[in-house]
């Protein structure tokens, strides 16, 4: 028996496989396809203080080896989550994390404080990196000062595991990672989507209603791997790696680059069973390489 269990500080995962926010609904959407208890954790749809309708259609464009989205954090607000959704999903035998987003610091703080009261939610993922909302979102994650200020404010009210999701749309992601670590983040997840756009040459129009959107899928994987490796060499808190993971081999690459856990995002749309397959694939890899404990692979990249 190999050990797949990992720890993000005090948060224990039965394996490193989590799902990326915005690609997995509230988990319920996948109950027909997989057994959620086989996953290390699920990160549910981005939740804000108030109801958001999101951006107008069209919100998605297929691109080479990836896709652009501009959903814009459509959700019914944190009160609806606590009253309607949480009671339906709290029994899941896996870690349920809520992705918390906002336009102003007060929204983040109030939302995090409400989630803090939910017994079966052991952690939040603070989204300071959404490229698809006009104000807030990514604006918080692209400067050290604003990233630090929102993490500091949330840290005061949120007592459980605080994961902070970082934006790749910055000059030096290690500076942001260090800034949120200094304010008490327990872990960082990276990367959120890369800002991109797509144009229809025939109609001379953008493919997204918002013109720009967030790029995900295998197209972003090399960028994500590079950033995970850079952050791994810059901070002491655990890293959750994501960006274009389609299979167990991709997941292993992120772990070797320094990720303690990984998230699977866009791949869920193409194969709703991919998460379970990655868990099995990690075990196969370990047996094949005679590795007893997955923790021995974290950051085990051999340079020279």
């Amino acid at each position, binding site marked *: 028996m190999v050990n797949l269990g990992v720890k993000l500080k005090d948060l224990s995962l039965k394996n490193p496989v989590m799902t990326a926010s*915005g*690609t*997995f*609904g509230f988990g319920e*959407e*996948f109950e*027909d*396809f997989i057994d959620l208890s086989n996953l290390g954790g699920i990160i549910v*749809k981005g939740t804000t203080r108030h109801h958001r*309708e*999101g951006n*107008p*259609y*069209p*919100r*998605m*464009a*297929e*691109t*080479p*080896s*990836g*896709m652009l*989205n501009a*959903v814009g954090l*459509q959700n019914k607000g944190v009160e609806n989550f606590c009253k309607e959704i949480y009671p339906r999903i709290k029994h899941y035998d896996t870690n349920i994390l809520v992705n918390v987003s906002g336009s102003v610091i007060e929204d983040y703080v109030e939302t995090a404080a409400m989630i803090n009261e939910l017994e079966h939610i052991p952690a939040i993922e603070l989204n300071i990196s959404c490229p698809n909302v006009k104000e807030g979102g990514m604006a918080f994650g692209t400067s050290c000062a604003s990233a630090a200020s929102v993490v500091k404010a949330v840290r005061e009210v949120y007592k459980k595991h605080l994961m902070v999701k970082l934006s790749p749309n910055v000059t030096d992601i290690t500076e942001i990672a260090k800034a949120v670590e200094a304010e008490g983040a327990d872990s960082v997840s990276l990367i959120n989507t890369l800002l991109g756009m797509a144009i229809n040459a025939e109609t001379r129009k953008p493919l997204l209603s918002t013109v720009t959107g967030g790029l995900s*899928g295998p197209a972003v994987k090399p960028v994500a791997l590079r950033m995970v490796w850079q952050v791994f060499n810059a901070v002491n808190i655990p890293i959750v790696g994501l960006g274009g993971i389609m299979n167990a081999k991709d997941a292993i690459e992120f772990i070797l680059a320094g990720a303690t856990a990984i998230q699977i995002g*866009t791949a*869920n*749309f*193409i*194969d*709703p*069973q991919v998460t379970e397959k990655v868990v099995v694939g990690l075990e196969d890899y370990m047996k094949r390489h005679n590795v007893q404990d997955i923790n021995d692979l974290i950051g085990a990249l051999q340079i020279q």
Partner: protein
Amino acid sequence: MKKLVQDFEVLQRKELNDEHFVLDVKALEPLPEIHPGQFVNVLVKDSNTTFLRRPLSIHFVDYERNTISLYIKKIGDGTKKLGELKEGDTLNIVYPLGNQYSIPNNANTLLVGGGCGVAPLLYLAKHLKEAGNNVTTLLGVRSEKDAVELDAYKEYGNILVTTEDGSFGEKGYPTQHSVLEKEKFDYVFTCGPEPMMKAVAAYSAQKNIPCEVSLENTMACGFGACLCCVTETTEGNKCTCTEGPVFNINDLKW
């Protein structure tokens, strides 16, 4: 209804004309109940420019043969690759997805299809006839060569055609067909290009006839996770894949 992800075996590919074909795929396990208006999301192999699955309307279901028929138009590389599938090939399918058309009883029903939007209407016509309805299917196509599968529709009722070039049936668009003024319908169902569906919706609204449309918004997952395929409704944005693809026109902001 439980959603499944399964490999199907390609039984045959019928070329209807230079653009359209029908793919008959056989399930390896007994098919679940599938309703008219529902769709599948298929995985395309060996296409560098096709990353996501391709959502396709269910054209017909044959429970005796355990097959689903898909009516496909070759548009991009993904649908062209589907058009190269041969007997015995495998096709991975997520299904059955979406809601369904309403099935009234003993009513005079009109089905209006245009382009590859005709896809769900054949299976709908079958269900409508079985529920004792009178079925008239009106297809709008460019030219005579695009007026395909007419005999299949005839099994379930009347079939009428408009062609843009006047080479077959009445000349013009389906909403210009004389039957719309001659006959009184109780229900209208439509699928096709949005301008055509909006014209059908306007006709139905003017005559005060209930009308359901099937939307073809682009989507990533097909089962309510990505929130990309939304349409604006009177109750806010709704996913076309889970709360549609069939909507009553009164619920849309058209």
